[in-house]
């Protein structure tokens, strides 16, 4: 199913997506600052520091240098010719965020936030992580700047992402297991917030996705928006035109908004987000907040959440730890409501099948999170003619998931 870019209401058609969020951190009804009083001044300080820095030529130059020489940007756009032929529809192109240092898009954000942290004079970094990619990316930038780093990670996720846990330790970070609630990403975020509220004077909280209170959804988006800016220019350079459809997986939504943002005002480009449908949305065992949730308030912002009729956040399920989250960035909630993007579910099985398909046809092991986007890209391409272009964000590489996949397929390593 495609978003219908030419078929939106006049009001939605007039939106200039570059102008959001507003000064209160709102994207329409979504976003905002739903946190305890103790964090209000620290968030105001962060917002002011960030708004200043993002216009500071020194800061921008430093960030650009790091992205180029440390992260390895720009990442290429790769035409998956063999895969496209097999699918037999549109041409499938990959934005190769998996080639970044540390293996995913997450580093774009942590490099940026670490520079902000240093300029704000903080000496300690904390982060939450699900798949461990953001934890690794945070530990990486922290140690490079000589800052202490504590990463909160759900006990369930620690079990399924052992390699990343050890990577963080090798990088000098302390990994704190979180045993409250469902022991996954949302609980890690709660625990990181509790740390922050306690140690706010010297600690910088690097949130790993476009969730949390303002300014995080904006700041994390800005740092990941390099993905879409590069991709847009690369498309024009390599193909002389923009893609027909772009797609990305959506956990909290940072790689997706990173790709989407530069294309939001290109109304001819259809935008589709792929959420984790787990065992299938109809089973209730999924993490598809936009496709199957409802508006609510979680982790500092109003957005779509997965909860019961009492407003209690319910347990989610996905084979990929990085998508196993009951909320989603508020900008995505708004893009859904304005009709600018559509969001669909990809099941565990579909993601696994896409993982193998990509491995065998192109020699690329994608992260399980990214495999959801690959599956969606294949579905979209199948229904389109050969001269159309489908751009998929390959948000990360699959090395971290090899154990999970082997276990799922009954193979002992």
């Amino acid at each position, binding site marked *: 199913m495609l978003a219908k870019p030419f078929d939106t209401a006049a009001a939605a058609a007039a939106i200039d997506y570059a102008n959001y969020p507003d000064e*209160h951190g709102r994207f329409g009804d979504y976003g*905002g*600052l*739903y*946190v*305890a*009083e*103790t*964090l*209000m*001044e*620290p968030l105001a300080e962060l917002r002011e520091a960030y708004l200043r820095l993002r216009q500071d030529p020194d800061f921008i130059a430093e960030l650009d240098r790091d992205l180029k020489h440390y992260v390895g940007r720009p990442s290429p756009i790769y035409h998956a010719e063999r895969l496209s032929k097999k699918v037999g529809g549109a041409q499938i192109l990959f934005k190769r965020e998996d080639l970044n240092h540390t293996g995913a898009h997450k580093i774009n954000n942590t490099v940026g936030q670490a520079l902000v942290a240093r300029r704000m004079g903080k000496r300690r970094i904390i982060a939450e992580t699900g798949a461990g990619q953001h934890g690794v990316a945070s530990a990486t930038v922290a140690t490079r700047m000589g800052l202490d780093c504590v990463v909160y990670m759900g006990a369930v996720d620690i079990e399924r992402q052992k390699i990343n846990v050890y990577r963080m330790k090798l990088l000098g970070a302390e990994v704190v297991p979180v045993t*409250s*609630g469902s022991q996954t990403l*949302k*609980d890690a975020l*709660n625990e990181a*917030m*509790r740390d922050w*509220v*306690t140690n*706010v*004077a010297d600690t910088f909280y690097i949130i790993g996705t476009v969730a949390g209170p303002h300014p995080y959804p904006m700041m994390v988006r800005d740092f990941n928006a390099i993905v879409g800016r590069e991709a847009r220019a690369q498309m024009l350079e390599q193909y002389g035109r923009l893609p027909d459809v772009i797609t990305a997986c959506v956990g909290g939504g940072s790689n997706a908004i990173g790709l989407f943002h530069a294309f939001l005002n290109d109304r001819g480009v259809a935008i589709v987000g792929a959420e984790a449908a787990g065992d299938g949305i109809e089973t209730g065992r999924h993490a598809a907040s936009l496709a199957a949730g*409802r*508006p*609510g*308030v*979680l*982790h*500092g912002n*109003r957005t779509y*959440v997965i*909860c019961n*009729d*009492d*407003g*209690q*956040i*319910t347990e989610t399920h996905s084979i990929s730890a990085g998508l196993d989250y009951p909320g989603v960035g508020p900008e995505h909630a708004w893009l859904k409501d304005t009709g600018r993007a559509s969001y669909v579910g990809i099941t565990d099985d579909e993601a696994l099948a896409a993982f193998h398909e990509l491995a065998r046809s192109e020699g690329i092991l994608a992260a399980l999170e990214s495999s959801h986007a690959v599956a969606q890209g294949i579905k979209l391409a199948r229904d389109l003619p050969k001269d159309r272009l489908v751009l998929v964000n390959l948000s990360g590489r699959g090395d971290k998931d090899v154990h999970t996949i082997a276990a799922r397929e009954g193979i002992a390593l």
Partner: protein
Amino acid sequence: MNRIDQRFAQLQATGRTGLIPFITAGDPSPDSVVPLMRALVDAGADAIELGVPFSDPMADGPVIQHASERALAKGVGLAQILGWVGEFRKKDENTPVVLMGYLNPIEIHGYAKFASEAVAAGVDGVLLVDCPLEESATIKPLADAGLHRIFLAAPTTHDARLAALTREAGGFLYYVSFAGVTGANRLDLAPVRARVGAIKALAPALPVAVGFGVRDAASAVAIAEFADAVVIGSALVEHLANSSPAAAVTTAARDFLAPIRKALDARPARHAA
């Protein structure tokens, strides 16, 4: 007149310090909530904060987190909690009840629907931890229905915000004594005294309750030096959690609170502001 305002007026007239216990609704058991509220009043509570359990209590430490998890595991929800308040009200027309919790359960229930049901049940105020002043338009239907919106002030709250908070506060201002989560043991009196003094300078008539870190008679008495009321949460919740069966819970509540009441009342009467 809202029961919270009445109660603080009485406290001020008699020079007493308010004592506000917090319990998590449904913990240690759903059956014990109403008897527990009554026992707390018998033991000297001036108002009761009833915690509405939430799956993701970001501002709470382990004690209240676990109490919330236990209550949720027993299926406790907003409708049931309002029912308990209604039952409590049948025999107690005067003790204010404040619901304390997080936004999402109320958002999903519907703000206007919640507001009218809460007023009908006999709730007097609502403290929503993740709804700061800047977002308080969200809960305007609650104020419209006559519920006081209780706001928090914290050590990180600068003077300009403090002034805005004192202007908007309903009932009383709740001063959080340290930057941290509930139940931590980080009370440092001097800065708390200074900030409560700053609030009093801005709004002499606005009652100030101090919470977080009040654990026993000694800490309550120390805070009574400069605050109108003390809130005791985690220490009480922990005490109750260790005291099943249900019959023992009300006794445990009395044993916990009565000495604190006594110690507060042993102080010389506070001067009317």
